[in-house]
């Protein structure tokens, strides 16, 4: 079934959909321009506006459900942005509204959590300002009805992520990580930008409503080009290979940031982009979609492998994020059949990964910001709530039966299997590795004997931090089943992204599912042997080549260093030298040359009257001679 027509809409909550963006934006403005005088109540304002935005999202969702499925794509025109090129407008349809709900929902929870987490930070107000800015930008990204507006949100979230990663900018590492994130993202944005240019010059518009219907008429080459360029953008934003390197460094930011931006929402923007443009630019079995699946699989494995070797709890989780998004990409690459699963996994992942990150944050909060898991251990008794919720998140992500992850991930694997066995099995292997590294993480943190630093006094976090954990863990339990069983999400999304002719039925414990479970169990067991039961050394052992390979993020940074950084530096030095010596050298040389000539020439003026007379004499002779010659020619 093809996506439905976009119907222009006014009035109602949907008509006022711009509030979704405006509210957090207002918050950001007040908090960032207000300065110190808003320190007292700044964070409450931030939370309030995030929640308000969530409420609007819910109301809009309700109004949307009021329409017949075929009429659930509502375009809301706002104002003329760039005459003749792009207008500001919202597209509120099942896809965007699901994102809006996720962003504002999880976002609000993380806002609340941050009140506690950032309570000791003198710049908490600024932090909330940035968070609000992020929410606003992210909402613009998903709600925009054209690629230019989407691009504004796209780079807006990039900015927010830059600001938040570098929130503790006095740490050089943080500042560098922030810059790296932005620059790498810009590489992706470059692709997106070019894609937009192609669209405009091909279709004469950048609005979804114009572009998608016309896409059919474009040449295959054009479509592939657009698709691949969009994918480049997606890779940048979603930390997919080859633009994955920034995500791990991004963990320099405060943990809520890692949870909200670098796990739940922003990094999934790439998936959104692919799914949104899917019908038009990633038709099933097209080159573009094939590449998408390949990137997805590669990343899901890479992320998983990285996750296995990290001792920094956040980096381990970051690796897993990469990997999970890899699953989503894979699904998104599978065309209409996969979209629903991609989004479903995206949503559940939003919950359980946020859950895990916030849990990790809670642990760090208790261990005064220690991130090295080798200095954790046996925390389960001291942080019961954190432990329980974290455990739920853990079970969800490894796909423990009947928890969220089980349904969504399994859905992806099954679909991939139907599509191509290789992809499927690779995804299964990924699942197995996930089982290992997540178990490793849990065992090292909550089980085993206590390997804390001397000054560590672990304690449970305040309720303002635990409540969000609880809510998220509930989502981690039930959401998956709710969305997948009887294809609720698939049907709901149908009008927006299309859906396969016959809906897939979900088989509990299908052979593939069982195989997956088996592998996961294997992984978990191995982790128990290595980290649960056995002694965990305080410093990481050298480990095999594979371990180092994983620890070094698969040499991604080394590669960038060798391929771009160093040559870049050389190029820069060369260019500067060339500019000073070469171009400017020529200019100054010219001046110097004239000066020198003058200096030499003036020596002719000897001061002896007779030499002057001679010059006159010769001059006269030459003049006469020349005249004579010319005259007689």
């Amino acid at each position, binding site marked *: 079934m093809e996506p439905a027509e976009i119907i222009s809409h006014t009035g109602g909550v949907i008509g006022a959909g711009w509030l979704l963006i405006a509210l957090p934006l207002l918050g950001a403005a007040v908090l960032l321009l207000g300065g110190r005088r808003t320190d007292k109540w700044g964070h409450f304002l931030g939370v309030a506006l995030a929640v308000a935005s969530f409420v609007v999202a819910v109301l809009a969702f309700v109004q949307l459900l009021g329409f017949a499925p075929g009429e659930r794509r509502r375009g809301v025109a706002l104002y003329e942005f760039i005459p003749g090129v792009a207008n500001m407008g919202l597209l509120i349809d099942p896809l965007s509204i699901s994102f809006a709900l996720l962003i504002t929902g999880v976002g609000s929870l993380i806002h609340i959590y941050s009140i506690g987490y950032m309570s000791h930070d003198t710049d908490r107000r600024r932090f909330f300002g940035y968070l609000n800015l992020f929410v606003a930008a992210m909402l613009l990204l998903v709600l925009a009805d054209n690629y230019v507006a989407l691009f504004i949100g796209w780079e807006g979230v990039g900015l927010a992520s830059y600001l938040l990663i570098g929130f503790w900018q006095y740490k050089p590492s943080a500042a560098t990580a922030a810059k790296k994130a932005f620059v790498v993202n810009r590489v992706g944005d470059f692709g997106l930008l070019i894609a937009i240019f192609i669209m405009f010059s091909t279709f004469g518009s950048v609005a979804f409503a114009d572009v998608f219907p016309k896409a059919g008429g474009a040449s295959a080459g054009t479509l592939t080009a657009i698709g691949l360029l969009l994918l480049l953008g997606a890779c940048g934003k979603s930390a997919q290979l080859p633009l994955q390197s920034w995500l791990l460094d991004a963990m320099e930011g405060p943990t809520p940031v890692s949870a909200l931006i670098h796990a739940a929402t922003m990094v999934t923007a790439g998936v959104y982009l692919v799914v949104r443009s899917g019908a038009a630019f990633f038709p099933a079995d097209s080159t573009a979609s094939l590449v998408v699946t390949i990137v997805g699989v590669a990343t899901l494995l890479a992320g998983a492998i990285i996750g296995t070797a990290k001792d920094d709890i956040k980096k381990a989780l970051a690796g897993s994020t990469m990997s999970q998004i890899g699953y989503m990409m894979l699904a998104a690459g599978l065309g209409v059949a996969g979209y629903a699963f991609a989004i479903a996994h995206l949503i559940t992942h939003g919950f359980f990964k946020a859950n895990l990150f916030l849990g990790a944050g809670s642990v760090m909060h208790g261990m005064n910001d220690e991130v090295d898991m080798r200095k954790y251990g046996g925390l389960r008794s001291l942080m019961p709530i954190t432990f329980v919720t974290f455990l739920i998140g853990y079970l969800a992500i490894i796909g423990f039966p009947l928890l969220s992850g089980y349904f969504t991930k399994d859905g992806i694997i099954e679909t991939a299997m139907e599509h191509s066995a290789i992809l499927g099995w690779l995804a299964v292997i990924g699942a197995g590795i996930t089982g290992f590294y997540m178990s490793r993480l849990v065992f090292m943190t909550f089980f085993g004997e206590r390997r804390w630093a001397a000054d560590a006094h672990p304690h449970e976090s305040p309720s303002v931090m635990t409540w969000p954990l609880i809510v998220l863990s509930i989502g981690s339990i039930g959401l998956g089943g709710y969305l997948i069983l009887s294809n609720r999400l698939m049907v709901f999304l149908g009008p927006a992204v299309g859906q396969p002719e016959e809906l897939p039925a979900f088989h509990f414990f299908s052979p593939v599912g069982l195989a997956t479970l088996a592998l996961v169990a294997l992984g978990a067991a191995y982790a128990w042997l290595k980290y649960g039961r056995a002694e965990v050394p305080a410093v990481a052992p050298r480990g095999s080549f594979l371990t180092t390979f994983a620890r070094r993020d698969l040499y991604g940074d080394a590669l960038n260093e060798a391929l771009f950084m160093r040559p870049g530096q050389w190029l820069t030095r060369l260019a500067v030298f060339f500019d000073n010596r070469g171009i400017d050298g020529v200019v100054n040389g010219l001046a110097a040359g*004239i000066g020198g*000539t003058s200096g030499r020439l003036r020596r002719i003026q000897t001061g002896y009257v007779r030499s002057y007379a001679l010059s*006159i004499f010769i001059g006269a002779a030459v003049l006469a001679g020349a*005249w004579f010659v010319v*005259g007689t020619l």
Partner: protein
Amino acid sequence: MITAPKIEYLQLAPLLLVFGAAVLGVLVEAFTPRYLRRAIQIPVTLLSLAGAFALTIVQTLKGVPTEPSAMGAVAVDGPTLFIWGTILVLAFVCVLLVNDEEHFVAAASAVPGSAEEERAFIEGNVHTEVYPLALFAIGGMLLFPASNDLLIMFVALEVMSLPLYLLCGLARRRRLLSQEAAVKYFLLGAFSSAFFLYGTALLYGFAGSVDLAKIAAALGSVAGQNGLLYLGAALVGVGLLFKIGAAPFQAWKPDVYQGAPTPVTALMAAGTLVAAFGAVLRVFWVALGNLIWSWEPVMWAVAILTMVVGAILAITQTDIKRMLAYSSVAHAGFLLVGVIAIGDAKQNSLALGAILFYLAVYGVTTIGAFAVVTMVRDPGGEAWHLSRWAGLGKRSPKLAGLFAFFLLAFAGIPLTSGFFGKYAVFQAAVADHATPLVVVGVISSAIAAFFYVRVIVLMFFSDPAADGPTVVVPSWGTAAVVGFSALATVVLGVFPQPVLDLAKSAAGSLFVG
């Protein structure tokens, strides 16, 4: 039986007045006591110049004569009248500048540093001969461009030059330099005028007459005498190019400009240049106009050489007067570009108008510049070395500002008269398809801009020397000169139209159809 020659006295009145005043001045020198002389000379000089100017105006209003006067010896036509007007104004201004005994030696005959010089100083003697000498020179300048045959031109040339030779030697300070300048100028001047004369002789041999019109006529009729013609024309050209200081005959200019008393330098830089170009136009346009095809290439070379040499050599000058000398060489080159732009009547009047305008504005600005030079003084006299000008902008911003303004005018920056002068000439040249020459012109004026700018940098952007030169309170004369020049440079830079019209109509009157 001899018929008395017919003389149009009214047409020649300005000339006669100036020469008369000069003779009167000599008599004054001879018969009045020393203490009275200045009191008489200055009014006589200024009044005669003013009167001559008035007469020129009257003549212009009465209508420009079409026939040459004095039996075809002197052509009082449009251009002549314009040039007379210009020269008289410039001369008047220069005399105002001369009116400051600081510049001139007490007793030229006295050996520098000798006892008698001391005495002369103490007695407060001044050379009032300066005034009659100047008047003779000015008279010569008037006659030079007006002369309608080569003999008169030669005589005028000498009448103009001989007093200048003497004036160059009369500087009060740095007398060695001054005398050297005089001797150099004299020897070279005499040398070049000999060339001029021999050229005249050859042309006479070619045409059987020294009358410009007859020579022009002879170009068509006489055959087989081309050797005489080209050689003669070339030698005459040498004499004239020497006077305007075109390369390779420019060597005398820097030395003489530097050594001569600054007011005299101003008179030469302004008056002589104007007069000499008038003469150049007469010879090359009136007499040799139909020979253009033969001398145009040569003149191209000369013009290019002059512009480039002037611009490039000026860059490394460290003496303000030498620098201005080279700049005047460069300007002579720009003017030559105009001289080359000869063609049909329309083109000619365009070019002629342009040259006349250029001469007027350049003369005014250059006098102003030299006037400023006279005001910046060290204990030992005027501060010529550029390094002494450093930071002048801070010590006396107004004067430095004015000087900077004159320099910008030389550089031809818009909204100064200099710009329109250049523009007019270049436009004429382009209209004559001499665009490459114009390109060379603009490039060399870009180079030239460098040393004008350099002086501004010194004056404004560098810090003053501890024992920097003092800026004297100007005498009323000098003040008037600077004020007038600055005003003229501004006004002509914003509303050149009136003078342009004058120049155009002056030129038009000569080339009708």
